[in-house]
């Protein structure tokens, strides 16, 4: 029997790694991939709790997370294509028109 806590620890680790990646990497695509990593960590948490409680509601949540992540990926990548087309770079540090 694997204690559920192990899965939760793993999910927490994945989440933190993903968060760190979002803050540190300069390529926008890699940032996006780290966001996907965080979403997967959330999925893992849902499924772990579903197993612990013994009902399938967590599975439904994970299902919807996957669907929404798909939609988000589509639009996000389209935006990145548009940004690349207008600025010629995907380096986050060079895309800061909101600077004071």
């Amino acid at each position, binding site marked *: 029997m694997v204690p559920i806590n192990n899965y939760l*620890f*793993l999910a927490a680790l994945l989440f933190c*790694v993903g968060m760190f990646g979002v*803050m540190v990497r300069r390529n926008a*695509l*890699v940032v996006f991939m780290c966001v996907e990593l965080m979403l997967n960590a959330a999925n*893992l948490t849902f499924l772990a709790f579903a*197993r612990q409680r013994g009902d399938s509601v967590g599975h439904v949540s994970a299902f919807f997370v996957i669907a929404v992540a798909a939609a988000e990926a589509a639009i996000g990548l389209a935006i*990145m294509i548009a940004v690349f087309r207008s600025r010629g770079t995907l380096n986050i540090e060079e895309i800061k028109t909101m600077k004071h």
Partner: protein
Amino acid sequence: MNGELLLFWVFGLATLIGALFVVAARSPMSSAMSLVATFFFLAGIYVLLWAHAIAVLQVLVYAGAIMVLFLFVIMLLSLAEAEVSAPVLRFSWLVGGASTLGLLAVLGLAISRLPAQPAALGPAQQASFGSLGTLGQIVYTTYLLPFEAVSLLLLVAILGAVVVAKARI
């Protein structure tokens, strides 16, 4: 050490290493491939959690569709080469790193207080727990509205992606 625990450790470590590669890899292509690997190993973890349907969906949708989309975009924009800019230390990275570690600690603290045993399931439920049938049962009855909403969301996403990415409308 039984089989389940061993599998957990194998898959878990592999997932973690894949995640670390995603964050640390030089080129976006390497990050993408690492992410695919991570997703596969995650699917394995899901199976260990008796979430078979979700595991399959993970492989089909996440690894099979979303990551393919990523790879298309990477190759379309010719970003496969490694980044050449020099590494730099920024103050926000320190803040981010510190809060990450802090969050990890807090989450760890919270998780360690949780009950560890999975629920005891009866034999009938053992057979159907995590199966596609059970999933479908719940989604099409209790959660029908969110299901339909998500389908609408997907439609909007498709249209949006087309509109945003077009060079000229």
